[in-house]
């Protein structure tokens, strides 16, 4: 059986026997892939899955309007599965909040409970790495002087129109009131220019340091083509180096920036 047939069959089955009230998957709109919310088994045949599916569907699990539909089964790639584990570690998802239609690399893992996701990731996708092109870009950027790098990013951030599509696409950006929208006091200017743009993009990246699972949905969503994954992966590498941890593998993980233990090195205090 083809992978997509198995996926459709599972989607129809979980809906038919009531294990889920809605399946969140992808549909084809020409070359474009859009999210599809399937609530009846007979519509499961409209589901598609291929390389053009860029969006991370985990983002919908926390939306109140999606929650109203009832328990969801979500189609998830390994990166999206890492997002689910991240959400579990941050108490945003618990054991039976959702089912997962787990699409792996070149194979389909069937219907999983949330608790089964982390073990699958550790067994099969522990070495999930950014693309070689992206790593080459990071090396190129690292070879520049700090001034050149600052200029590079200033140019990139100047393009930002503050549409916040990157934020809307990211499962990690689940705050109901983002800091950029706090206006008493207004720490970050909302004008789509200058300091405000710089501050917004840097703060977004910092808020995802040690939390980004590398799905790339933010960059895919950016209408201005800002290379957001460059920044995300760079910070991810720093976190992995300093804290020996990667986001989205351990549902019990403590937040990297907020946790500490008495044995921590204090070599940054001179």
């Amino acid at each position: 059986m083809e992978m997509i047939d198995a996926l459709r069959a599972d989607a129809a089955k979980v809906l038919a026997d009531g294990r889920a009230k809605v399946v969140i998957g992808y549909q084809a709109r020409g070359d474009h892939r859009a999210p599809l919310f399937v609530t009846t088994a007979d519509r499961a045949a409209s589901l598609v899955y291929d390389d053009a599916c860029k969006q991370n569907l985990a983002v919908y699990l926390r939306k109140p309007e999606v929650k109203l539909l009832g328990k969801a089964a979500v189609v998830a790639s390994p990166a999206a599965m890492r997002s689910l584990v991240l959400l579990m570690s941050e108490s945003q998802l618990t054991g039976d909040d959702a089912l997962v239609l787990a699409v792996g690399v070149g194979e389909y893992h069937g219907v999983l409970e949330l608790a089964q996701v982390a073990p699958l990731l550790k067994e099969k996708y522990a070495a999930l790495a950014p693309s070689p092109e992206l790593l080459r870009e990071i090396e190129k950027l690292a070879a520049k002087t700090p001034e050149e790098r600052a200029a590079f990013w200033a140019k990139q951030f100047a393009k930002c129109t503050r549409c916040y599509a990157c934020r809307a696409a990211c499962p990690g950006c689940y705050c109901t009131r983002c800091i950029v929208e706090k206006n008493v006091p207004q720490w970050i200017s909302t004008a789509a220019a200058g300091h405000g743009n710089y501050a917004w993009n840097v703060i977004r990246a910092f808020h995802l340091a040690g939390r980004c699972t590398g799905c790339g949905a933010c960059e895919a969503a950016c209408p201005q083509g800002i290379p957001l994954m460059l920044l995300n992966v760079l910070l991810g590498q720093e976190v992995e180096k300093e804290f020996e941890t990667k986001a989205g593998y351990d549902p019990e993980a403590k937040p990297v920036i907020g946790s500490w233990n008495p044995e921590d090195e204090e070599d940054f205090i001179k």
Partner: protein
Amino acid sequence: MARVGVFLCHCGENIGRTVDCAAVTAAAAKMPGVVHAVDYKYMCSDPGQQMIKQAIVEKKLTGVVVGACSPRMHEPTFRRAAAEAGLNPFLLEMSNLREHCSWVHEDRAKATEKAVDLVRVMVEKVKHNRKLHSIRVPIEPTAMVVGGGIAGIQAALDIANGGKKVILVEKSPSIGGHMARLSETFPTLDCSQCILTPRMVEVASHPNITLMAYSEVESVEGFVGNFDVTVRKKARYVDWSKCTGCGDCWAKCPVKKIPSEFDAGLGKRTAIYRPFPQAVPNKPVIDQEHCIMLTKGKCGACAKACQRGAINYKDQDELVKIKVGAVVLATGFDLWDHSAYGEYGGGRWADVIDGFQFERLASASGPTDGEIRRPSDGRIPQTVVFIQCCGSRDDKMGKAYCSKICCMYTAKHAMLYKHKVHEGRAVIFYMDIRAGGKGYEEFVRRAIEADGAEYVRGRVSRIYRRADGKLIVKGADTLAGRPMTVEADLVVLADAIVPRTGSERLAQMFGVGYDTDGFYSEAHPKLRPVETSAAGVFLAGACQAPKDIPDAVSQASAAASKVLGLFSKPELEREPIIARVNENTCVHCRACIAACPYGAIEDFEIKDRKGNVVKRVARVNEGLCQGCGTCVAICRSNSIDLDGFTDEQVFSEIVTLE
């Protein structure tokens, strides 16, 4: 409308020398919202404070900025003055014009300019200040003392005699600690048991003391005034309510060859045992590691012997939750393991012993009934070598610090030995003799002059055992400048004092700091020697640093007085500088809960009228929060604010500098 008063202090010449206070006052008077600005030589003095009070009333001030020294110095002073004039004390702020300006700059013009900025920043802040009110937390007037050595006993008795309830938790089967094992005590040669055991009995019979022997602290929650401590009562396998301590059980126990901890391994005990005859409580426990019934399931000799039916082989550990208002940690010390010193035999030779083993040999209740007999063959040693600083003052192999008590107990050991073996030789190798203490120097002189102890200033480089059993001690007499060899029958090492094993875990449970050696850290080395950085947790005895009995007892009484002081009021008042969570915007990511170093943030469920959970959020426990602001920095949605340092206040400070 804000009506701010600015009060500039010259601090004598401390500020006035570098900062033009009159110019700063003139600039302050023009700042928006400022209705009153004056400068004065000593604002903290009585006339200075009067100026503030008078202005608050006459000018109807809504906020006050005092430009003076560090708020650590005089913020309480000025806030009290404001309160006396009827202004909420938290509507007063200080600009630090001394430490942050005059003391660190030389250029008068630039320093004055900076002082104006420092004042302006606080004027802007104070306009956003809100009235805050001290937080009152009820106090549970029961203390817990952890550790039943002499320090713990003293602290418990003092608190109990002060009229408050005490729970004394001791991990071994009896209280008494190390002091119960000593033969005599310096500098008076009092019999240790004779002065200690009446205290132990007093603990057991005191109506205000609950003794929890053979128990350990398992976990701690809560905060000053309201700690919830879980204590593990270890399985004793003997029902102490039935047991009379008659001794029939241990007389019948077939396992008789277990090295006795109390006798430092020189004596033997049974598997069902009380550590020593004067133990309090005077009831046995079964050592589950060695009991045949518990390990192999057959024997039952003690159960047969017990006429009261007190033996219960199915006994289980029991966890007890206790609410206490204050805690005294008195966990004491261990001896450093000298097997690290290969040149002293590395612990291989029976006749190279530590100080406690010598105490037991010299003790009338010890395994040799007080005769000094060496462990290997039971012969009376004719030459004994004592080596001081074994592991102390040695940062390469041992510990960098001086263990403080060894000079004195070694002199005592030499004295006791000479009193028992008149013709014997006591040779003491020392680095320095540190005999600071009442009657201490005289005591050491007595050991040398009256009792003939031979003091040799120098280190021992090596000890080896000759075939005839003699220990050959090779050292140097650095005063005579020559190598020295002593043929000894017994060597006593004055091992360094180290904290009890497991003391670090206990410190972490209570949130108490400890140094690299594991000794608990006091809040201030001079002025707060029994307090810790954790409010309501106090220190007594050698858990804080090596100490002799008088020092441990003094500190225990000091800790007890702190506890009684804390308990003298029904409520605790604390500064209301605490974090608050905006529950509308909190998404319960729990980052703050993990980050809070005080465990002050808790999960909270917001429920509707029917009791359904509407939302989960983080909530700050007012009693625990120390106002450090870590959660504020960690919160991604900026949903936490710190009273007294709100976002709006900080933002207004920054913006006014642009």
